[in-house]
């Protein structure tokens, strides 16, 4: 394979914005589900959309896929409005909902033929190729499939039109380890060929390795969005031992967590100030100073546990 063309797709910084969300709002009766959301997802990203149940992820996704009209703000995919151009966007976006439901009396092959009616002729051979790759029995009725096999049918249907954008709502929840790995490998492969992927999840550990971008959502709002690399610089844990007075972490940046026991002290800081960090490291009585980036799971807990405590 030509490495020059191979790397061509892997240009995160200058890449065009594929999904753009500005000031998006949605409320259901008295409950605000999405409270002014801004997001930008560049081409080729695997964008992990993280947050607790009820944070507003699914409502956002339903607005992105044109299933819900926003109360205010705008979401576009490849420049097209997700609500007004929803029908035209259907061929561009692959969507796997959290609990996909199809006509369960159909077989794996039949649901493919049925769905092919809404798509160009290339759909069916692509669907058959995918179901074969996922080792699905084409004669099996959908109602007899396991949860993992059912999810593979949903992914095959979503991928068969060769969409530029793939949106997955909790795609791997409740699936076996091997199926989850297969799903993630498909995601990586798609991102490598320049497709853009948005995955909502609260299974943080397995998303960590594949994600290029991470966004944390709580109470309908974005808490933090960054590339996976930026996140390592922006969220840091400092630990040290001290004699005398415990150091004050507040000057380091936004302190998300702190704890001290005896002479041992640690703090998780968002956007640390390098000068303040250097000063702390040199301070009298401070020894065994260490700083380490957080795993995504630790970042999730630090960011969302803190926000979650608020009313």
């Amino acid at each position, binding site marked *: 394979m030509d*490495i020059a063309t191979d790397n061509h797709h892997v240009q995160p910084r200058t890449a065009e914005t594929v999904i753009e969300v500005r000031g998006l709002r949605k409320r259901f009766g008295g409950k605000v589900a999405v409270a002014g959301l801004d997001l930008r997802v560049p081409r080729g990203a695997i964008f992990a959309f993280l947050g607790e149940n009820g944070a507003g992820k699914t409502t956002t996704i339903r607005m992105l896929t044109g299933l819900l009209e926003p109360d205010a703000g705008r979401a576009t995919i490849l420049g097209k409005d997700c609500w007004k151009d929803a029908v035209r966007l259907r061929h561009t976006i692959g969507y796997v909902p959290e609990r996909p439901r199809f006509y369960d009396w159909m077989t794996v092959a039949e649901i493919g033929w049925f769905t092919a009616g809404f798509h160009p002729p290339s759909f069916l051979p692509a669907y058959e190729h995918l179901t074969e790759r996922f080792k699905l029995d084409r004669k099996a009725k959908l109602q007899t499939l396991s949860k993992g096999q059912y999810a593979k049918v949903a992914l095959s249907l979503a991928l068969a039109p060769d969409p530029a954008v793939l949106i997955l709502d909790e795609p791997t929840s409740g699936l076996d380890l091997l199926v989850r790995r297969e799903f993630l490998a498909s995601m990586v492969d798609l991102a490598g060929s320049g497709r853009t992927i948005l995955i909502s999840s609260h299974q943080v550990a397995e998303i960590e390795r594949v994600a290029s971008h991470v966004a944390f959502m709580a109470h309908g709002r974005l808490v933090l969005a960054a590339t996976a690399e930026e996140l390592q610089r922006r969220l840091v844990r400092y630990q040290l031992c001290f004699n005398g007075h415990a150091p004050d972490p507040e000057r380091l940046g936004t302190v998300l967590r702190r704890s001290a026991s005896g002479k041992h002290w640690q703090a998780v800081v968002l956007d640390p100030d390098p000068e303040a960090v250097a000063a702390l490291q040199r301070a009298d009585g401070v020894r065994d100073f260490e700083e380490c980036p957080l795993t995504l799971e630790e970042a999730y807990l630090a960011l969302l546990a803190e926000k979650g405590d608020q009313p």
Partner: protein
Amino acid sequence: MLFQPVNPDLPVPIWEQIVAQVTYAIASGALESGELIPSVRELAPRILVHPNTVAKAYQELERRGVVVSRRGKGMEVTPGAPELCRTWRRDLIRRRVRETLREAVASALSPEEVRQIVEEELDRADGQRRLRDSTREKR
């Protein structure tokens, strides 16, 4: 070459883990000068990491002069790579051992005790490697 799974929980970034694996493979002769390393698109789904992360590791290997991009072919291991990688392997392991030994000394273990632990753990690691190699050969 056989890529080991990368571990996102380690304090070492994933791209550096990939750099280290390629470096060790070249240092040990498992990858030789003139051989091609797998393409970004090929490796990323195999080890389940984003293609950008693999690309970043490859850029670093290229910057170090360990691989060179051959148009239309891929990334090729350079003639000077084995020598470079052996030096790096030594330096990297020395740094890790130094950190651990520093902690051991700071914990007030006696040098004899530390030496004994190092010997025992080295034997154990070597035994595990032999076991792994022999099961691999049987496959």
